[in-house]
């Protein structure tokens, strides 16, 4: 995929600290192209889902107010080292991506 996702998941005591960086332009649809003066169409992530070992732990709905290349950090209690974290997103143009990582 054009837009990779980076995930880092580490255990802090009995809580998994999961941090993720998604590459995405997050265009608001409000900006204008400096050269042509045309409005750049909106292109942003609307939904993000995170799972640990297949169980949904976090569901996000985002607006255009999330920054470019979004960062998402969250904490999951009861997860263990070795568990598989999956983060997937879908944007307003129907593009999707997902990535896996193992909690260490």
């Amino acid at each position: 995929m054009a837009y990779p996702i980076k995930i880092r998941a580490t255990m802090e005591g009995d809580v998994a600290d999961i941090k993720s960086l998604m590459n995405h332009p997050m265009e608001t649809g409000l900006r204008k192209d400096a050269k042509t003066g045309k409005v750049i169409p909106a292109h942003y992530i609307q939904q993000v889902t995170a799972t640990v070992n297949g169980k949904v732990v976090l569901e996000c709905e985002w607006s255009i107010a999330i920054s470019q290349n979004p960062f998402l950090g969250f904490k999951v209690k009861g997860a263990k080292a070795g568990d598989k974290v999956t983060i997937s997103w879908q944007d307003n143009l129907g593009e999707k991506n997902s990535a896996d990582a193992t909690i260490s």
Partner: protein
Amino acid sequence: MNHLRRNLLKGTGAAGTVAVAIAAGLLKPSQVLAAEWNKAAFNAKTMADAMKSIGAGAPLDSKDIKIKAPDIAENGAVVPIEVISNIPGTESIAIFVEKNATPLAAEFKFSNGTEGYVSTRIKMLKSSLVRAVVKAGGKTYTAAKEVKVTIGGCGG
């Protein structure tokens, strides 16, 4: 009363199945909607409308919600923000930027042991209150923090 109901059900057996089918048909779109992006909430232009459309009519002020954000953000396009909810049974956190064109920035729903904590980066048009709305145990709670923005981050 029950007999009457039983008779009615028997009498309208055929019609009943149709009704059930319609009901099932009607149920489906609403289920799909529940899983879909909340367009009404994200397009709402005022705080009151946005709060209403996520089902948070009159939230209570709470000291158990902490918002970590810079007092002064130099670049409104990237404002780091952390919301920590110490309210037991926190189900979701929504982040609003009161003076953005569409105040609702994001909503996060927790399940299966995820703590009431979220960290992200948002865009802010200008200096504004950043408000977190937490849903827990059927109630809604809120807290806000003022963030001053030197250069706005929505639009050109």
